[in-house]
């Protein structure tokens, strides 16, 4: 099962490090990362494999949200299906 992580907020040092460390500790594999910075705003999308994750998706969603709150950005983890179903026939 794949998940999509999006991170949005003002750019600063260590955002990717923080997210990646968290994911590594929970056995979530990162499959792809794309990232842009528009006028100081950090915008990242990650495709991750959550099928082997140490915790349930609901817990990952909550914990990532908390990390985001700590460092002042918005972090979301969503099941990939919502994007596939909306944009692919």
């Amino acid at each position, binding site marked *: 099962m794949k998940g999509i992580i999006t991170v949005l907020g003002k750019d600063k040092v260590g955002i990717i490090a923080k997210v990646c460390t968290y994911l590594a500790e929970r056995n979530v594999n990162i499959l792809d990362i794309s990232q842009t910075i528009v006028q100081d705003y950090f915008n990242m999308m990650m495709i991750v494999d959550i099928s082997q994750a140490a915790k349930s998706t609901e817990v990952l969603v909550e914990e990532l949200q908390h990390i985001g709150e700590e460092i002042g950005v918005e972090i979301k983890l969503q099941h*990939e299906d919502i*994007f596939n179903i909306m*944009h692919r026939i």
Partner: protein
Amino acid sequence: MISLVEVQETNKMIREMNLDVRTITMGISLMDCAHTDLSVFNQKIYDKITKSAEKLVKTGEDLEKQFGVPIVNKRISVTPISIAAGSLNTDSYVPVAETLDKAAKEVGVNFIGGFSALVQKGCTTGDRKLIESIPEALAVTERVCSSVNVGSSRSGINMDAVKLMGDIIRQTAERTADRDSIGCAKLVVFCNAVEDNPFMAGAFHGVGERECVINVGVSGPGVVKRALEEVKGRDFETLCETIKRTAFKVTRVGQLVAQEASKRLGVPFGIIDLSLAPTPLIGDSIAEIFQVMGLEEAGAPGTTAALAILNDNVKKGGVMASSYVGGLSGAFIPVSEDHGMIQAVQRGALTLEKLEAMTCVCSVGLDMIAIPGDTSKETISGIIADEAAIGMVNNKTTAVRLIPVIGKGVGEMVEFGGLLGYAPIMPVNSFNCADFIDRGGRIPAPIHSFKN
């Protein structure tokens, strides 16, 4: 491969444009609970509802987290009680409503629909008892919703029921006068009611449905409005195409949630209802869509045409997105639940008569309209008859949800709270129609009903 642009688009629709799954409704058949003894019947329906819907709320919350899309309401609809309780030995169905209320609280859903009767061609003893129990049932319960189907294109309009419902609506208003007559906000009078409708207050689990089913209602007026802002000033073809594409995307989200919910709960998936149902939030309004289309206010000349375009293209987009589209799909135009509609009433742009004209092309009818508390029961019946006639002749569903606010008059505001919103009381044409309503009997079905 999923692209960053697509991910951003989806999340923008959820975050900024109020895209949501409005409701997951579990339909539960109560046919097998029939019994002659009231306490046995109550126990059976309580047990069946609480057992079937045990995991409904939790599953909804899990899906909400996993997909990152809000699922606003989790609800239950049951077999019309007048049918399930047909053999009951009792004079009043109020204890049944109380049981439904208790079951709804136990499983954590905010509304339970199905305190209903289908009397388009005539009333059984059970139907009559149910209808007469409505005012008290809605006064003593919190989450129970009620509906009565008084007409259909195939059988005409039961004018005895129309007359009775005028009285029942008034009684319901009086019984809940201390709370701005809120009981009436939970009571719908239908013509051509659909049996797979996940939207309250008119939801019930149809007699042709299976044991248990999951129906989902999706909504996104905000999303449509923003999409239309992008094509401001362009021609009608572009306008229609834009609504269609947006409705497609919105419906796909509902389809996903519905399938996933049905899988997790082990309950078959019924239908997606792709309705544009507003909320009192700014940016989540049907009236704002009219404004983006080019009208100064809802109610301005052109509004009926605008609504027809909106309704038709929502359906066209949605039908492509899911094979099982049903319910009341289309655009809802409740007054109290839509801040743009409220504003239009306050500015004098929108009248009851214009709303009635608009209901010829919308998906339901005169919905959540506050009227003066001294409106007579005959006048209410007259409005119901008009609306039912529109439904009957045009082969469409129509409904009336009027709230005569006891003790208040034209221009005063009423506050219902939550999704039910707030509304200014609208003037009603008060010329007498009592002799017409008092005739009783049934209006025969229109000529084009005779198809077989």
